C-alpha cells in the first residue's frame, strides 16, 4: 500500500503548522521524517492519522483520494501509529489495550478475553517480544509499553506504521532492538514512517530521509550524508552539535547526598540508597531511562517529596525535612521536568510567573501587600536578559512558544543568587536554538561556581553538558562515570549493567548506531 500526502496544509490560527506538504510512503521502505521540535512533524502525522483535518490538500492511498474523519477511518485504511505519548490505558491489561476498539466478542457483547490473549501472544512470538497479556500497563516499564503500542498497531494489520519519536524513552540498546523490529517489518512489506529529530538514528535506519523545517519540506537527504549536513538542513543554519565549555573548576561549595531512599505513594521504593557529591562549578548529569527514579530524586532535593532515609546537605546545611519554600530560600534554583504542569501557571501573566516563587519576599512584597511595580520592573529586566520574545509582559505566559516559556522559567530560577541549581529535562521539546541558549545558561551558572544537577533522559544532552554522569536504574545509581564515556556503555548502564561489565560488553557487542557514529562533530 502506497500512502501519499499531496499539498497538505494545516493552520492553527495564523500559524501554519504544515505548508503544502508532499510526501510518499512506499511499502518496504523506512521513511524518516527529520525535523527539530516544533517543525510540524507530529501535526502532519496527526493529519495522516485522522486526528486533525487538513485545511488543504489530499491524502491518497494507492492513488485513490481518501478522507479520514477520525482515527477509526485511518486504522481501517491500514494506518497504524505508535504515539510519542503512549495511548494506553494504565488500568487496563495488555490484552484489553490491544483489542480496544476492535474487540473479539461473544454473545451479548461479552469480550473474548482468551482470543485477545492469543492475539497478543501470537504477535509477541513473531517479533520475539516477551509481553504478558494479563499484565497491567501501569506496572510495565516504558520499553515494554512501547512494544504493547506496536502490538496494538500490528493487531490491526497496519500496512503503514507511523512511529512518532519512538526512541525518546529507550536506551541505545533498546533503540537497537527497535531498529531491528523496524527492519523486520520493512522486510515483510510494511511502510514505516519514522519521525525523529535524532540524526544518528536516522542515519542508522532510514532508507530515505525527508527534512522538515518550519512546516515545510525543505529537502531530502541520504542516510550517508554526514550529521553536520543533516543538522544544518534540519535547523536551516550551521549548528555546533555541542556546548562550548571549558573544564570544570570545582570549588569548596558542595551538595552532598548520602544514603537517600524514597518511597512512592503505594510504598514501593523509587529511589534506593543514592549517594553522590556535586562540587560548586561542576555539572553532574543524572542519566537514565524515564521512570527510574531520577524525577523523584530531583523532587526530593526540592522538598516536594519526603525521603525515608538519608541526608541532603548543601554547604553543610541539611535540606531534608525542609519545606519547598525553605529550600528555595536556601538558594536552590529548580527547573521542573514538565514546565507546563509544574513550572508555569499558563493563565498567569509573565510577570506573575516571574515572581512565582518569590512573590512574598522583599522586594516583591511588603508585608501582605504585593509590590506590583517592582515585579514589573524586574520582569522587564529578566525578559531582556534572557531574550524572551514577547509583546508584553502582561500577556499570559501561555501565549509564548515552548522555548520562550522555558526561558521564563530559567529567568525566574537564575535571577537570584544560587547555591545549587537543579534542572530536570531542561530542554525537552525545545527547538535547537532554544536548546543552545539553555545549555549556555546552564554552563554559565556552573562557571559562576554553582553546583549544578541536571536530570536528563537525552543521552546527547547528558554527553554535551555533563562534567560527570550518574546513571540511574530502578532507583539506584548504577555508577558515576566521567564525561567522555562511550554512549554504548552508558546505554548498558541505563539497563542496570555495572560500569566495568558495561565497558566490556560495549566493546564486544557494539550497537548498530555505534557503527554509524564515525565522525561525530565535537
Amino acid at each position, binding site marked *: 500500500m502506497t500512502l501519499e500526502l499531496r499539498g497538505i496544509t494545516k493552520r492553527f490560527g495564523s*500559524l501554519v503548522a504544515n505548508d503544502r506538504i508532499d510526501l510518499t510512503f512506499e511499502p518496504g521502505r523506512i521513511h524518516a521524517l527529520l525535523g527539530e521540535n516544533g517543525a510540524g512533524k507530529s501535526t502532519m502525522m496527526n493529519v495522516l492519522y485522522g486526528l486533525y483535518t487538513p485545511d488543504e490538500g489530499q491524502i491518497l492511498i494507492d492513488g485513490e483520494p481518501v478522507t479520514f474523519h477520525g482515527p477509526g477511518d485511518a486504522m481501517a485504511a491500514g494506518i497504524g501509529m505508535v504515539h510519542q505519548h503512549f495511548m494506553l490505558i494504565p488500568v487496563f491489561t495488555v490484552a484489553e489495550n490491544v483489542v480496544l476498539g476492535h474487540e473479539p466478542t461473544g454473545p451479548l457483547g461479552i469480550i473474548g478475553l482468551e482470543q485477545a490473549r492469543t492475539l497478543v501472544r501470537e504477535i509477541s512470538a513473531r517479533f520475539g517480544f516477551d509481553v504478558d497479556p494479563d499484565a497491567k500497563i501501569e506496572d510495565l516499564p516504558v520499553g515494554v509499553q512501547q512494544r504493547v503500542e506496536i502490538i496494538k498497531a500490528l493487531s490491526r494489520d497496519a500496512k503503514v506504521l507511523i512511529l512518532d519519536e519512538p526512541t525518546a524513552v529507550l536506551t541505545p540498546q533498546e533503540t537497537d532492538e527497535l531498529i531491528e523490529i523496524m527492519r523486520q517489518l520493512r522486510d515483510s512489506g510494511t511502510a514505516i514512517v519514522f519521525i525523529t529529530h535524532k540524526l544518528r538514528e536516522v542515519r542508522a535506519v532510514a532508507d530515505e530521509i525527508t527534512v522538515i523545517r518550519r512546516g515545510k519540506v525543505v529537502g531530502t537527504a541520504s542516510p550517508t550524508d554526514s550529521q553536520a549536513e543533516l543538522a544544518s538542513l534540519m535547523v536551516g543554519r550551521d549548528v555546533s552539535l555541542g556546548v562550548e565549555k571549558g573544564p570544570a573548576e570545582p570549588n569548596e561549595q558542595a551538595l552532598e547526598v548520602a544514603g537517600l531512599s524514597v518511597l512512592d505513594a503505594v510504598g514501593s521504593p523509587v529511589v534506593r540508597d543514592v549517594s553522590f557529591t556535586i562540587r560548586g562549578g561542576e555539572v553532574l548529569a543524572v542519566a537514565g531511562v524515564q521512570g527510574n527514579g531520577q524525577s523523584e530524586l530531583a523532587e526530593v532535593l526540592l522538598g516536594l517529596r519526603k525521603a525515608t532515609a538519608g541526608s541532603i546537605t548543601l554547604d553543610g546545611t541539611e535540606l531534608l525535612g525542609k519545606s519547598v519554600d525553605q529550600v528555595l530560600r536556601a538558594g536552590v534554583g529548580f527547573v521542573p521536568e514538565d514546565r507546563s504542569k509544574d513550572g508555569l501557571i*499558563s493563565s498567569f501573566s509573565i510577570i506573575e510567573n516571574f515572581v512565582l516563587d518569590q512573590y512574598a519576599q522583599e522586594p516583591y512584597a511588603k508585608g501582605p501587600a504585593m509590590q506590583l511595580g517592582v515585579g514589573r520592573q524586574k520582569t522587564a529586566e529578566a525578559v531582556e536578559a534572557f531574550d524572551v520574545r514577547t509583546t508584553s509582559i502582561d*500577556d499570559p505566559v501561555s501565549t509564548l512558544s515552548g522555548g520562550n516559556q522555558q526561558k521564563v522559567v530559567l529567568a525566574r530560577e537564575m535571577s537570584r543568587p544560587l547555591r545549587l541549581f537543579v534542572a530536570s529535562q531542561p530542554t525537552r521539546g525545545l527547538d535547537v536554538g532554544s536548546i543552545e541558549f539553555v545549555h549556555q545558561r546552564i554552563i554559565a551558572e556552573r562557571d559562576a561556581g554553582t553546583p549544578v544537577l541536571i536530570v536528563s533522559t537525552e543521552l546527547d544532552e547528558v554527553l554535551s553538558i555533563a562534567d560527570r554522569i550518574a546513571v540511574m536504574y530502578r532507583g539506584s545509581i548504577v555508577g558515576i562515570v566521567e564525561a567522555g564515556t562511550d554512549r554504548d556503555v552508558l546505554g548498558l548502564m541505563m539497563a542496570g549493567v555495572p560500569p566495568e561489565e558495561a565497558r566490556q560488553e560495549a566493546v564486544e557487542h557494539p550497537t548498530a548506531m555505534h557503527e554509524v557514529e564515525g565522525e561525530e562533530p565535537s
Partner: protein
Amino acid sequence: MSENNDGREKPERTGAQPDAAQPDADAPSQAAAPQQPEAHTEAEPDGRGPEDSGRARRAAQAPAVPDTSPRPHPVDDGPTSSQARWATFRHEMLTGSWLLTLLAIVAALVISSVLIAVADADVRASAGYFFARPADLLSAAWSSIAGTYVALFRGSVFDYTVLTGGGVAELGRAISPLTKTMVEATPLILAALGIGIGFRSGLFNIGAQGQVLMGAATASLVGFTFVPPGTGPFSSLLHLVLALGAAVLVGGLWAGIAGILKARTGANEVIVTIMLNWIATYLVAYLLTTAVYRVQANRPIAPHVAETAELPSLLGSWSPLHWGFPLALLAALGVWWLMERSTIGFQFRAVGANMHAARTAGISVNRVFVMVMVTAGMLAGAGGAMQILGVEGTFRASSAGTIGFDAITVALLGRNRSGGIVAAAMLFGALRAGAALMQTVADTPVDIILVIQAVIVLFIAAPPLVRTLFRLPDPQRTRVAARAKEATR
C-alpha cells in the same frame, strides 16, 4: 473595582473552573509566532497532548467554534482610521461579557415567561378554544406574564403605585422595595464572596448553606444569651461585634473541616461540603429542640436576640435596610484587595490556576486549601449572622433559607469577582425581594425564581449558546490581533 478583570474575562471560560483555561490558553500570540515559528502543538511534549490536539481538530472541523488562536489583523494594511477604531469598539460591544450577561438574563426571563403563561389557569382555559379566538390566549398570556414581572419589579425596585400626591414619605415608600433588595442581597454578597474565593482557588465549596446556617445559629446564640454591661451605644457595639465575630468564627471553623480534610487526606471538598450541609441542618434542628436554645413548648424557635445585638437600621423605620449592607460592600472591597493585591490572594490564585506549579514554587497547597475554606466559611458565617441580626431576630431551622445555594449561582453569575458578585447579588436579591409581591399580586409561585436563576447561570456558563441564540459574532473569528491579549486574559 474589578473591571480590569471583568472586561477581559475569556468568553468561553466559566471563570469558576480553573482547568478550563488551560487547553485554550495554549496558542502562541500573534506577535510571538513569526519570530518563533514553532508548531505549538508539538512544542509541548508533556501534559498538553490530548486536549490540545483534539482541540485543534475541532477548530479545523468547525471553524465557528471558538478558538483563542489569534487571526491576522484585519486593519493591518490600512492606516488606523476612526473607522477601524469604531469597528473595534463595536466588536467589543457585541462580544463583551457584560452583553452576554445581559442577554442571558433576557433569555432566562423569556423562558420563564413561557412557564408563567403555561401554568396560568386563564391561559390554559383560553387555549381550549384557541382557534376560535386566538386573541384571548395571547391577552391571557400577556396579562399573566406582564403581571408577574411588574409585580416583581414593584416588589424589588420601585413601587410606583404608592405615588399619589408626591410627598417625601411617599417617595420613601416607593423606593423602599429597592432597599429591601439590598437587604436580601446582603447575605448573598457575603456568602458568594466566599464561594468566589473558593472557585478562584480551585475549590468547589458547595457548603455555603451549612456555613450560613452555622453562622446564623451562632449569631442567635450569642445574640440572646450574652448580656452586655450597660445599655449605651458602646455596649451595643460590643454585643454586635461579639455576635458577628462568633458567627464568623464558627462559619470559618465549620468550613475549615472540609479544608483540613482536603489537605490532610485529599477528601473531595465537593462531597465533604455537601455532607457538612446536611450535618449542619440536622445539628441545628437537634439543638433547637434542646435547652441550648431555651426552647419552650416544643416550638423549635430560638428567643429573639437582644436589642443590643441587632444591626441598626440605616435609613430609618420606613426601610428595612440595616448596616449589614455597607458591611457587605466593605467585605467585597476587602476580598478584592485580598485576591488582587495581597500575597495571600496570589497564593490562592496560583493554587487555583495550577496547583502543581504553585507547589513547585514553594506555596503550601494544603495550607491554602485550609485558608481558602476558612475564609469562605467566615464570609458565609457573616452572611448568616446578617440574616439573624439584621432581619429575622429569631433563629429557626429555616433561617438560612437557600442563601447558601443561591450564593453559588450568584458567584457564578458574578464570575467570582467582587464587583460582579455585588451586581449579581443585587439581581438575585431583587428576585427574592420581589417574590412575595409577585406571589400575592400576580399569583405566580416563588419557585419561578429558582428557574430564572438556574437558566441565567446556565446561559452565562455557555456563551456560544447565547451567541447562537442572538446571532452574535464570535469574538474569536473577528478578533483583532491587538485585542488578543485582553481576550485571553
